[in-house]
Structures are given as C-alpha cells and as structure tokens.
C-alpha cells in the first residue's frame, strides 16, 4: 500500500502535524519521573529477537526500541516494549515507510554522536539509563528525527497486530478499546445507559 508520506521529507510531515494541531503540546513537555516498576531494557528484548528483523541491525534496533520505550514507557501497564513496537519499526522501514529509513539512520547516528560529550563512554542511546535517555530526548524534541520516532512509535503501538506491534492487543487493552471485536449493542457507555434507565423509569 502506498503511503501518503512516502515521498516526503520529515520537515514536510512536521508541517502537517503542526498545521493539524498535533504539535500543540510540544513546548509544555516536562520530564516524567522514572517509572515505578522496574522493566527489562527494551534493548535486551530487541537483541534477543534480532534474528527476526527484516532490515534493522541489532544495535540500531536496540536504540530505536529504547527511544520508543521512553515515548510510551512501561509502567504498571505495558508500553512500547511489551507491544513489540520495534517490530513495527522494522516492518515499516522495510516497506511502507522505507522512504524514511535513511533519515532515521542518519538521525540516530547524529543523536548517538552527541552522547559522548555528556555521558562518558556512552556511544549508544540504549546504553543510557532512563533518566539520561529522557534528558537526551527532551533536548532533541524539536528535531525531525524525534518527530518521526514519535509518529512511528504511535503507529506501531496502536495499529493492528499484523503490522508487528500492539502484540496481543496490549495497546488497545490499555486504553479500553475493544476494536478487535466487530459489532456492538446499545448502550455503549455510562451516560447513554443512565439515559435509558431514566427513560424506562419515566414510563
């Protein structure tokens, strides 16, 4: 399937997100506290499964997985790691979003190249602890690279499992979306159920 963003540079895509209001919250970011529940590093998961990747190398997969894991972190509930978002990255950059692969690799390389100055002996994003990862992402929040990581993470987390992420519908379960079912009966929610009760009492 042809993608709308296939032939376009991230800067154009950002303009779209800006014009559509999706970037509204950008300037108000605050760094979230380290998650309460200890989690397995996204990088480890990615490395274990490295053989399954279509196009990503082990190290870059570990870095992308770590970025995705900060955008949608594992807390008391599953995050990008448990959803297997890195497999969406891998599938997408091999197919639908192959136009972005080069930009993504270049963006990751530039980001990694800045690490040594602030973090001794660290040359990969996935080597940092979560607090440092968040600081690095905050500093890079306005870059096209971050935008693309952000968009790809959301696509991977919430799209159908067949694309590689949203494993066992964990993302849909998280938000209460029963989208894998097909048909519904009324009432759907709290307020229409109450309304129906009021109507029946009034009769």
């Amino acid at each position, binding site marked *: 399937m042809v993608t*709308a963003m296939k032939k376009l540079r991230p800067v154009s895509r950002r303009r779209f997100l800006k014009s559509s209001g999706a970037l509204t919250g950008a300037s108000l970011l605050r760094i*979230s506290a380290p998650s309460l529940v200890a989690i397995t590093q996204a990088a480890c998961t990615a490395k274990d499964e490295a053989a399954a990747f279509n196009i990503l190398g082990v190290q870059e997969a570990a870095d992308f997985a770590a970025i995705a894991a900060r955008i949608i972190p594992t807390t008391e509930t599953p995050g990008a790691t448990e959803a297997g978002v890195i497999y969406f990255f891998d599938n997408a950059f091999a197919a639908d979003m192959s136009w972005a692969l080069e930009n993504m690799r270049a963006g990751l390389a530039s980001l990694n190249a800045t690490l040594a100055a602030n973090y001794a002996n660290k040359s990969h994003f996935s080597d940092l602890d979560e607090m440092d990862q968040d600081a690095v992402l905050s500093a890079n929040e306005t870059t096209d690279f971050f935008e693309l990581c952000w968009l790809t993470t959301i696509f991977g987390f919430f799209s159908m499992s067949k694309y590689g992420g949203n494993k066992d519908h964990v993302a849909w379960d998280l938000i209460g979306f029963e989208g894998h079912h*097909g048909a519904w009966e*009324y009432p*759907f*929610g709290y307020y229409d159920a109450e309304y129906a009760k009021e109507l029946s009492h009034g009769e």
Partner: protein
Amino acid sequence: MASSVTFDMRQPVDFAIIGSGSAGGIIAKELSTAGFNVVVFEQGPYRKAQDFTHDEYSVLFNSELLGGGPRISGQTFRQYASETAESPVEQPIRYAQTVGGSSVHFTANFWRLRPVDFNERSLLGSISGTNFADWPISYEELEPYYTRVDWEIGISGAPGPYDAPRSKPFPMPPLPIKSSGVLLEKAAKALGLQAQVEPHAILSQPHNGRAACIKCGYCMFFGCEVGAKSSTLAAVIPAAEASGHCEIRADSAVFRIETDEKGRASEVLYYDADGNEQAQKVKAVIVSANGAETSRLMLMSASERHPDGLANSSGFVGRNLMFNAHSAGDGVFEQPLNDYKGAQVSRIIHEFYESDEKRGFYGGGGIDSRPLWSATPIFHALMGMPPDVPRWGKAFKDEIAHNFTRQMSIVGSTTSLALDRNNITLDPANTDQWGRPSMRLTYRDHDDDLAMAKFLQDRAMELFDAAGATKAWRHPIHPTDGGEHLLGTCRMGDDPSTSVVDRYHRSHDVPNLFICDGSSFVTSGRGQPTMTIMALAFRAAHHIKIAASAGEI
C-alpha cells in the same frame, strides 16, 4: 472485476457517466433501469463490502481509499494565487477513489438543506466581494427528490424542531443515542437550546434487502463491511448492474472529453488499468466526478472551440469552491462514553443555522457531538491530546489511557461564501500518476466563515461546561487547507455568464454534456452536503430521461 455487460468502445453509448459516487451512482441506476445504455467510469478499483476493513493505519494514514496521497493523486495547495502551490503531506482534497466514490467513506451525516439555503441572497442581500447568489431552484422543487433519497437510498432519523417540510416520514427510526448525544442534549437543555436527532444514511433496520447497522463505529473515512451505510455502492449500483444496461468500468481514469465539429461531446478518453489510453464513443456525457475532479476534467478538455476549458465560456469552471469551515472543541468526562462504538453522531443542534446580523457577520452552521478523532486509537493519540499534556512519556501514556473512552468532540460546521479566489486550476508544474496535471487548490476562507466557526466553537465550550466535562479545550481554528466537501465549482444558474450548468444540470455551452455533483451547488449549506448531491442526482436523472426520450439531447 467486470460488470455483467460490456459496451463496445467504438459504438456510441447512450451515456458515459464519469464518476460512480453520490451523484454518478444514482444517475447510472436511474438511466440504466429506464433502458438507456450507460458506461460508468471510475478511476478507483471495484471494492465490494467484503473488501473494507477496520485497519486504521492503512485507511487513515496510508490513504487506502484516497488513491495514495497528494503526489500520487495529483494535488497541490496554496492559500493565495500569489503563492506557488505545493504538495502537502496530508491530501488536501479527500475523496474516495473506489466504486461508490466518497459515499463509501463518508461519515453518513445526512442533512437536507432548508428553504433558506436556496434563496438566502434574496433574503439577506448581496455580500460585497463574493459570488453569493440564489439557486435557480427552490427547496420545494427539490423536496420530492429528497424524499426519494430517504426511501430509495435508505435514511434513519426522526423529525427535529427546525426541519424543512417533508412530504413523507423517515423510512426508519434513528440509530440509538450515544453518550455524546446524551451529554449534548442535556447541555443544550441547560442552556435553553434544543438538540435534535441526527439523520443518517445508515440503516437502523433491514431495508430494501440490505442489512442493518452493526454499530461497529468504523464509519468516518472507512467503508462499511455490511453495506448498512447507504453508499451508492450498497444502495443503487447493484440495481444498475442488474438492469443489464450498465457497465461499471473501474480502474479507468478519464483525462479528456472530446467534442466534434458540431461542438457536441463525442468521446471520452481515459487511461485503463494498465495505463493505456482508451476512447469510448458517446452520445452524451454526464460528469459526476466531484467538485475538484470535475473542474479538472473540464479544464483539461480545452480545445480550439473551447479555449478556456469545456463548458467554461463563463469562466466559472473551478471557481467558487466551498469546503464548509469547521471548528472543534474536545472534552473529557468522568465516566466512560465508549463513543468509538456506533455511528459518529447521534445529536445535533441547529439553533444557529440561520444567519443573524446581530452576530456581526454572515453565516450559519450546525453543531454536533461525536468521538471525531477519538473513534480510533492512532488518530486519538496524534490529535486528541489536551494542549497541557506532554507529548511523550508516562504522562502522555496515562492521558491516552484515561481519555480514550471518556472523550468527545463538539464540532461546528459552517457556511462558506463563494469567492473567485477559491478555486481549482490545473497545476502547471505537477502531474498525477497518470500524467494528468495536478489539481491546484487555492483556498482561503472568507473571514465571515472563520468568524462563524469561532462562534460555534464558543457555543461548544459553553456546552462542555453545561455538560459537566472535567476538562475541555479548543482546537485552534486555522484557515481551511483542504476538505471533503467539494462544492460550487460548476454552479447551476439561469444566466450562462455566471454559471456553468442550467437548472437541469445541462451545460450552457455543450448541449449533450451534463454536470451533476457537489460542483452544482450555488451556496454551501451548513455542512453535510451529500444528501443534497443525491437529491440533485435523482432530479437531474429525471429531467435527462425526459429530454432523452424526447430526442432533445
């Protein structure tokens, strides 16, 4: 997929209909079941109900039904003629390329126009700098055809306090009220306003051999997998094909209408599925390709006889494009609405439909409540977040998890004034996948359109407050940079110098060329134009049949 009948390209077919959507599908059914031979050209593929999915990534973000994004489908945008138009990432002109056209993917909100929409210029007077005008027909003239749409296409609903007169009741009861509808209704009451039932082109009960809605919630931008949405694909194209007089020629992208030495349309030139040029000889042509594609085709069909484009002696082809401006506020409530289930809208407010000089500007509009972007998860995460929430990390995740089932939007849709500067022209620098010049969209709303959008957003925020939202916020109102409603670009009128088609949709310049789709509109209505496009199509077909039978085409 081939139709049961195919027509010889070298023998003139009675009618070539370009476009299989809201208008084209209905005209095809009306003419073919009356015994006329019809070829319907559709540039998209022939998808059937079973081909439609709930795949948000593919449908909303990979342009599955839209033809593949702005570069592929050939669209560029600019605000003013002084700028160079560019291909944005999001397709500015969003119409489905598939048999049934945009009636397949539309949200199925289904409003009749009201009498005032047809003669508002007479009632209010002229508006300087605009092409604000009356329609050449009245509501009363169109009413019988609205009623045919109700019953033959399949509409669910119930009368509202401000409805135009109707000659028959709704054929089906409304779809159930949702939590968003309950909240809007209660808030309206608290503010002294009256909410009413939203009519839908969706079957609430089995009708005409079709199944009822299963309330899956995938209406807006998706195709209906049970055929309960009253697209022309579900409602009329099967009957057209069963007539034995209608060939649906899918994957066929028309690029030119040829005229003969008498100045009559004689041939339709198109690219077939393999990209090869083909030519269909015709006795008459009906263009129902939508307000953007129809304009492009007319302009591409320029010749020595028609130097500014076919049927364009007035210069009005492509002009007066009207999108309906929109505004939205979002609100979150304490309890789950689960508004992603069922059709988007269940209640509307039409108290602000008519223009009111006390507001200080021209315009009117409608308000509805719906999940909007909170009907599907990706859209919600990208578009539905409050402005004070971080864009990533735990707080972002928590907000999505909490809000998805508890959020709704209150949407305003407004009039758009007809302006010379808002138009479709041929892009001199870009082409689509077939090599046709890209459609160049030039659009900047009239200030009154945006003022009306703001006015409705102010009401939306009051409604959220009255409904008890725990949090509510506005989405910034920007000038419209694209849309689904493609209105006004080949307007109907009695005066050939200020309109493209006459009151029966026959072009003023070419006697056997008819145009019927959103381009025929003279004013924009207040949003939800599809029902009127369908009613115009029934009416146009009626008069075309009479003319054809009398040998007057």
